């Protein structure tokens, strides 16, 4: 649908391995910085004192996502069908 004379500019920043590496390092630093304040502050808890532990929400988020991915993967064996499943 794009006319021939209107070739879009191509940006390839994410194709360079060293850029990906930089992103990764930045990401890990952010993760560490996010958990760091937990060691120095008192947290308000809702249901249990476990929530006040340093990095509780980090661990919670990580475990939840791992569980969701694994459960989805398992269910996928039963639920995933070929794309023409309903056509034939």
């Amino acid at each position: 649908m794009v006319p021939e004379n209107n070739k879009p500019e191509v940006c390839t920043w994410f194709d360079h391995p060293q850029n990906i590496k930089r992103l990764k390092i930045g990401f890990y630093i952010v993760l560490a910085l996010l958990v760091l304040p937990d060691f120095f502050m008192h947290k308000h808890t809702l249901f249990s004192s476990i929530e006040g532990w340093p990095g509780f929400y980090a661990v919670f988020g990580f475990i939840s996502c791992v569980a969701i991915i694994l459960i989805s993967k398992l269910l996928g064996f039963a639920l995933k069908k070929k794309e023409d499943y309903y056509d034939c």
Partner: protein
Amino acid sequence: MIANLHPSLLFFAGALLLWLLPLLGRRILILLVPAAAFAIITQLEPGTYYGYQLFGFDLNLLRVDKLSKAFGYVFTINAFACFLFAQHLKTRYEHTAALAYIGAALGAVFASDLISLYLFWEVMAVTSTFLVLARQTERAYGAAFRYVMVHIFGGLCLLAGIVLQINATGSVAFEGFSLHGLPTYLILLGFLVNAAAPPFSAWLSDAYPEATVTGGIIMTAYTTKTAVYTLIRGFAGWEILMVVGCVMAIYGIIYAILENDMRRILAYSIINQVGFMICGIGIGTAMAISGAVAHAFAHIIYKALLWMSAGSVLYMTGKSKCTDLGGLYKTMPLTLIFGTVVALAISSFPFLSGYTTKPMIIEAGVHEGFFWVWLILEIASAGVFLHAGIKFPYFVFFAKDNGLRPGEPPKHMLLAMAFLSFICIFLGVYPQPLYDILPYAVDFHAYTFGHTLNQFQLLMFSALAFFMLLPLLKRTETISVDTDWFYRKGGRLFVAGCDKFFNGLNNWGAALFFDKIPGLLAKFFADPGANLQKHCVHLLADAVGGETDMKAQEAAIEHRSRFGAYPVGVGVLLAVLCLSVMSFIFFM
């Protein structure tokens, strides 16, 4: 009078006027209608208007209060953005369906009684079907057919419930239902079908991804959110809705993770998000209801934007499967930016609109001490980031480069996306205008240091989980079986089963009554005397021990029968004599 003009009226009038105007006029009209409707809604004074009589009941088409106004605002703002996005469409057909559909949704929101609500409800179902049909593919026709059938089912449940409710209470008013019984359960079922609650949710993920580029965007906002509105109005505080909401929140995530089609991922994400709202309705406190309304408001905006970014990709590449896409950041950077803003907004990333609305629902649950609700909604919050926040942008714009170099979509699409992105950021940074229009005043502060930090931790470590388990999330060219299996495959199996059973019975009966039995009878009556004798001889032979030569006997019987050579004997002579004597005596 202009102050109390019914907003739906503008949309219906616009839908008709569209057929009289040239292209430029149509382009202006579709922007003017939602803008004017928004302006009118801001001026509406609380109360009920547009009374009329039907079936002997006093009905009102326009009920204005904070709840209906809040939905009115977001419906019209979203309509404006959607029509801005759809400026390139030259046909009248789609715009007409869209205008009538949005008008009906507004009508349902402002209706003050069950009968008016039902009428608009059905108009919505029919008009939205045309947005799927407009795609004009074989798959779209099938999906549209299933879509309208499911909605007719839901509509009939609603109608049955309304009739029973009117019969039981004598009132057509649409207020909070307190009576637990068949009438209200049927009404609830009707609403839940439109809210896409499992197991009646498959119509959404079936039909929306098959709709046109712009039709899909428009449909995401109205059907499910009108249902959310009606649930708030009628069923606030019904605890069963907490369960329904939690199931929806998790269900949507799991299916979204399994899916390959980007618009189907986003369709399941709607079910997930509506789950949060329905959970809030089930909690039912002032804060939860306000949270549900606020979340519906924010959700309509960012969901439309998500569908716009997916729609732009589909419009420019003609592809919507993650396995066909990838690497689009190279030529669609602006679409990527809007797509990322909105992906973060739906994940309730701090400083974006999801963060100032969704936690309100969770906090309302915490206030009431519902541990399970808190737990499931927090897990679901992490899961949202997983499927909508990272998976969608990652597989569409990054991941494996499939060599597509489409370029940015047309300017009006970019403008519409920029407009909605602005609202997402605005409501995230300064949510007070939104809080002011909620049905109940809220005392909610999203931006405490601890709360914001927790949210960042939750989301960023979810991202870590995503990238660590990326090999498990590899896209496959598959679809996932949902409850629509029961009417797509199950329906066919039922027909095949009936075919086998009843046609089998028919064939067996035909063989028995038209071939076997007549054949036997024909064989017997061809020579009844001989056959009878043979049978008797066989019986006798069996009884006495079978030493007689059966073959010779049968040959003799057949010979006698064929030539009529029966030994008559003395018995017959005596009988003849006896008869002669009797006749002689008789005539004497």
